[in-house]
């Protein structure tokens, strides 16, 4: 819109802003402040502050009946010393990795289908909504709806036996790691689909045609063009899925029948037993680890330009 001015005497045009300009900017800034303030205040009150409280409490002492303000590292030491911690993290990480992989494959293909194979915009929106609507219904119901499906007398087993594929019900389907993963995938694939869909939709279709003209087959086109250009969406989706799985307690409790545990489900036990400081310490450690994972993903892919309009 405007050019850098270079007059004949060599003066560069970027002079310091005038008082009038500053006043204009300030009033715009002030308006933005009061517009974003309510939201920020609510988040600080109910998110920022509580997280700081958790951090503080993680250093507290506790007895059977109360928590005692203090500044001790015992909770952390106990965590690091305990074998259980390692086991829990391995369990959570295992779930996170498997679910991430499965939702990535599913999400990528579904997004690809919607963006590149569905031609009518109406169909695109319609099918997208079909995928999204379940997300807007109750998570618990969707989760437990797998129980009659996967149980020993459940639909799946009955169908298998009816078709003669198996003679005995498959036990591993329910109250197992398998069931946990199925439930996670069921609940969280959408979180992969949406960001990847977004990224893919921005790809200029003529890029694909140019690749085809240059002789690239379908697979090469996807590998060379679609995949790199969807990196941001994949990164965002991965962040969502990983944090959701790592932070979950309800799914792993229900679907594993108590056999598996996650960090957060153990934490929930501690809370129920009123052992707040250890729970807080556990939460802090978890947040640090997940933040490192998220930072790692963001290192790999620059997400900012897609989030900042």
């Amino acid at each position, binding site marked *: 819109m405007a050019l850098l001015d270079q007059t004949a005497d060599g003066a560069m045009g970027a002079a310091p802003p005038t008082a009038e300009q500053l006043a204009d900017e300030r009033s715009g800034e002030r308006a*933005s402040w009061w517009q974003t303030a309510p939201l920020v205040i609510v988040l600080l009150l109910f998110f920022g502050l509580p997280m700081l409280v958790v951090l503080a409490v993680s250093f507290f002492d506790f007895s059977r009946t109360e928590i005692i303000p203090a500044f001790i590292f015992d909770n952390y030491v106990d965590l690091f010393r305990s074998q259980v911690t390692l086991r829990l993290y391995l369990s959570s990480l295992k779930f996170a990795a498997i679910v991430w992989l499965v939702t990535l494959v599913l999400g990528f293909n579904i997004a690809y289908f919607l963006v590149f194979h569905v031609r009518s915009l109406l169909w695109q929106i319609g099918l997208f909504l079909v995928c999204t609507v379940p997300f807007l219904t109750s998570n618990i*119901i969707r989760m437990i709806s797998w129980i009659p499906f996967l149980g020993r007398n459940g639909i799946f087993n009955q169908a298998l036996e009816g078709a003669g594929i198996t003679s005995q019900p498959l036990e591993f389907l329910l109250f197992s790691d398998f069931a946990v993963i199925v439930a996670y995938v069921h609940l969280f694939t959408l979180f992969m689909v949406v960001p990847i869909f977004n990224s893919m939709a921005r790809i200029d279709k003529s890029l694909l045609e140019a690749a085809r003209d240059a002789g690239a087959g379908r697979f090469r086109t996807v590998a060379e063009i679609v995949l790199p250009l969807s990196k941001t969406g994949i990164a965002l989706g991965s962040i969502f899925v990983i944090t959701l799985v790592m932070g979950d307690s309800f799914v792993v409790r229900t679907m594993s029948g108590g056999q598996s545990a996650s960090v957060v489900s153990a934490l929930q036990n501690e809370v129920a037993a009123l052992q707040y400081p250890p729970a807080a310490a556990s939460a802090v450690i*978890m947040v640090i680890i997940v933040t490192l994972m998220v930072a790692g993903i963001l290192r790999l892919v620059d997400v900012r330009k897609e989030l900042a309009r």
Partner: protein
Amino acid sequence: MHGSDEGRPWTFYAFAAFFGLFVLFLYGPMIVIYILSFQGPNGGMTFPLNGVSLHWFNALISQTRVGDIAGSFVRSIGLAALVAIVTVVLSVLAGLGFRRRFRGSAFAFYLAIASLIMPGLFVGLGIALAFRLLGLQTGWYTTGLGAQLTWTLPFGLLIMFAVLGRFNRSYEEAATDLGATNWQRFREVTLPMLLPGIIGVALFGFTLSYDELARTALTAGAQNTLPLEIWAMTTNVTSPTLYAVGAVTTIVSFIVIIAALTSIGAIQRRRARGKQAEQSHG
């Protein structure tokens, strides 16, 4: 560019089949539950259906053994409506504020994203602890509302980003040019044009609150939300009443979703109508 007669590559059918399976995967189990909720009075938790009845739906309203379903149901809807309203107002305002660059915008943005990603139980724990340390009681309209807002506000903000990103500012300039004051411009041009997005924010605010479990677990206070009731039921109920609850709550969700989507669709259609009706002469 694509002729409507152009044949589709085989990969299309492969993908379509894949997509169909996915949809089945998404909806299948839910449909199973709905069917099972009509289980006969003597039926169990799985197939086969032992007669068809509304017995378990009756059990919802009549038996107190299963907890306070009806009460939590009504309360949850009320809370969800409140959350929706608050989310809309705060998200729209903040979204408008983010249109300019301002000092602290990065902080506000990352605060919202962090609130989105933080596991709900941690947030709930933090709020409960904070109130406990302050000697206050957790309550429905204080901590319960606040905890749910930490989940819905980031969603609302992101939706507003998407909507405002596509919003052309020249409409607002035209309004100013024609003599509108700031308030008139907002009421006559900005708000109506953002309405579909606002409905979307309200939809998310309502449904996310209505189904929320992790954040409200420790912050709802003395009374349960519907999801909390359901959670309690999963551990100690062994009858299809659970399925009946599931069916009812999902129907409510569907009603809200369909209402929101049809109103958005109606608005969009009215405004975009006539792309085919272009006159041939200028």
